[in-house]
């Protein structure tokens, strides 16, 4: 039905449809776009958390004390969904232990710390000529190599990119969407990236298109970034990709959260990706601009993912964007931003809508960190106390995924988790529009996050219980089986003993057969000994078989001497014996 609707819409030239819901918070983007992307001075040390992406933690390949070069692999991807980690600069590894990481929990996690030597010495670069790799086999090999690139989605989700570039018969990608919407307030890293490196982004897009075999590419940019859109249009016109496939920069109206992949896909193509499917199932794939640029750096220069552009903004002297090595502490970035103003009361990683408060300013910048905002009471006043829900349904109006936030709120608040799940709690993208719109100041998203993590914990406990039940049942079954086997063995033995007893009783009358049996046994033993002897004799030393004739002769001579010596000894003993007898 919806596809029919799409066909109708597209035939009327209405390919793009407005996203339902969404809000328009003040965007605060101009503060940090006044100066070019800066380069942070090389810090003294870098702290690299192993948990920088979605999926399994990578396996550490180095140990404390190792000297590593810039770009060297520190930890390799483990399992299907995982990403490698590389040294962002040269230096010595000083520790591999738990340290504070940028995570909403504020809990420490495993990190690799490198003391930099300041030389910033690269490994040997190994660019890959991806244009030559045409066949599917070559491409899959290329993706295997991409596992060690460490590239993850740099838009904030940090999903390993190599997984997204895999194609199979089931999910062929028709349209490649480049996500340059950057809808969240304050964040400008993608904006600056497009203004300054649009041509490099296009080169990255070429690679992604080549790997996926997409038939068209769409670049979605919000209309609050006219400079970036212009730069991208210019780059598109010059790109060889524009001769291969239709390539279009689409300017979309500024509205939060149209930078969410599914929202943007809907905006650009009119296709709504079903909740239980991936975008590839409907022939679409979406990448962030910074991610495809990382692809370009990896393939054309052999540089793994070791840095990104981060916005430092909010309550700082000079809000700006910086190219930051992963592992650099937030404090260094704040320093680069001219330092925080006096009334700063905390730091937010990510945007003001979906970001989280940092536990400390010493935490490192990771692959997912796109923005650091110094918060102050005048920028982010504390939320007034929550009042009762008046069921005005404003949250439902602004929900971009068409949920019923007010219902979900009731269920989450009363911990009625099953019901919350039934109301598609897990489709919630935690964009925060409902909280933003709520006239009663209810922290709706916090309730949803609480409910989600409770449900996930319950599901895990259930899984563990099922496993335990299975293992317990197997154990009981095994014990039963062993008991049975033992009983059978005993029974057999008892039966055997009885038969033996009967036999001896029957044969004890006559002695001769027993002697005969004994003799037979003895003969058998003798035969066995004889066999063993023969075998020993036959086993000639293996290493002399192929020896050259002169060596063979030498061996023969030595053997003869040994034999003669043996003979002489036995002779001597014999004569001795004879003399003694005499």
């Amino acid at each position: 039905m919806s596809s029919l609707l799409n066909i109708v819409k597209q035939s009327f030239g209405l390919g793009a449809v407005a996203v339902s819901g969404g809000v328009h918070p003040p965007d605060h983007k101009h503060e940090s776009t006044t100066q070019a992307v800066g380069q942070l001075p090389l810090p003294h040390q870098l702290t690299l958390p192993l948990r920088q992406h979605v999926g399994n933690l990578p396996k550490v390949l180095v140990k404390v004390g190792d000297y590593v070069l810039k770009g060297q692999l520190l930890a390799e991807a483990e399992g299907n969904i995982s990403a490698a980690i590389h040294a962002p600069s040269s230096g010595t590894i000083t520790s591999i232990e738990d340290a504070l990481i940028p995570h909403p929990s504020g809990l420490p996690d495993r990190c690799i710390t490198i003391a930099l030597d300041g030389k910033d010495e690269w490994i040997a670069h190994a660019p890959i000529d991806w244009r030559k790799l045409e066949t599917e086999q070559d491409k899959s090999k290329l993706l295997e190599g991409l596992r060690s690139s460490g590239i993850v989605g740099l838009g904030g989700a940090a999903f390993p990119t190599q997984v997204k570039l895999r194609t199979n018969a089931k999910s062929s990608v028709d349209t490649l969407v480049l996500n340059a919407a950057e809808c969240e307030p304050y964040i400008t890293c993608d904006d600056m990236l497009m203004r300054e490196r649009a041509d490099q982004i296009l080169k990255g897009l070429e690679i992604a298109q080549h790997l996926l075999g997409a038939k068209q590419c769409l670049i979605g940019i919000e209309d609050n970034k006219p400079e970036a859109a212009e730069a991208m249009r210019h780059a598109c016109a010059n790109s060889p990709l524009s001769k291969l496939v239709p390539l279009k920069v689409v300017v979309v109206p500024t509205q939060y959260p149209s930078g969410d992949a599914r929202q943007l896909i809907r905006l650009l193509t009119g296709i709504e990706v079903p909740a239980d499917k991936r975008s590839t199932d409907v022939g679409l794939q979406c990448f962030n601009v910074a991610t495809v640029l990382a692809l370009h750096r990896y393939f054309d220069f052999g540089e793994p993912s070791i840095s990104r552009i981060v916005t430092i903004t909010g309550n700082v002297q000079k809000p700006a964007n910086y190219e930051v090595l992963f592992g650099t502490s937030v404090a260094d970035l704040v320093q680069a931003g001219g330092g925080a103003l006096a009334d700063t009361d905390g730091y937010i990683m990510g945007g003001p809508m979906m970001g989280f408060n940092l536990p400390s300013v010493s935490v490192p910048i990771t692959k997912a960190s796109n923005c650091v905002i110094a918060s102050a009471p005048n920028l982010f006043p504390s939320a007034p106390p929550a009042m009762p829900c008046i069921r005005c349904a404003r949250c439902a109006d602004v929900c971009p995924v068409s949920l019923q936030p007010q219902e979900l709120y009731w269920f989450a608040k009363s911990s009625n988790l099953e019901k919350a799940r039934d109301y598609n709690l897990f489709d919630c993208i935690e964009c925060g529009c409902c909280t933003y719109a709520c006239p009663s100041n209810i922290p709706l998203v916090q309730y949803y996050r609480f409910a989600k993590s409770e449900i996930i914990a319950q599901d895990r406990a259930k899984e563990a219980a099922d496993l335990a039940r299975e293992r317990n049942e197997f154990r009981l079954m095994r014990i039963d089986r062993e008991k049975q086997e033992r009983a059978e063995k005993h029974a057999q033995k008892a039966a055997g003993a009885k038969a033996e007893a009967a036999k001896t009783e029957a044969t004890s009358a006559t002695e001769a057969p027993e002697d005969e049996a004994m003799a037979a046994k003895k003969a058998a033993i003798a035969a066995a000994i004889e066999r063993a002897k023969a075998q020993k004799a036959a086993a000639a030393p293996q290493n002399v078989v192929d020896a050259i004739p002169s060596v063979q002769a030498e061996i023969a001579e030595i053997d003869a001497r040994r034999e003669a010596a043996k003979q002489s000894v036995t002779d001597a003993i014999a004569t001795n014996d004879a003399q003694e007898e005499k």
Partner: protein
Amino acid sequence: MLTAVYVMLFLALLLGVLLGYSALKFKVDGDPLVARIDAILPQTQCGQCGFPGCKPYATAIAAGEADINQCPPGGDAGARALADLMGVEYKPLNAEHGLPKPKSVALIDENTCIGCTLCIQACPVDAILGAAKHMHTIIASECTGCELCLAPCPVDCITMEPIAESPDNWKWRYPVFDIKSVGQVGNAQAGTRH
């Protein structure tokens, strides 16, 4: 009149045969109630309820021989779920059977372990790996934290380690609001921002 009797007889016969057949054909093995109770129980197999495992306890509850409040690892939520299922009044956990503890896993001090295999025999879920006169170790992901291995150990080398909170198993908290003292309104507001 006679036709009606015949019809009734025929119907009775037909339905009887049908019922008899379906009673054989669709026979349910085991008590489904036991399985449903067992699904609620946490499967630690710790025996704190007084039965040798979760399944026997479930069987006892189904038979009305045991109360619903004898499972400390299941906690209050477990007792409530059981009360719900059995249609009886909720009862707080019976302290005689122990109190709920934070979820833990056993840890063998490998320097002290003498390799006696007694704990292996005690483990209800085969989560201990080892052989006679060789060091034993716990497969932490399989350990249910039942503590059954503690008692048999002749050298007391097994301890229970509570599972620490990590970014992996951390949960978002229920939204609560800090009560601010009036004098300090200005500097105590991190955490309530969105």
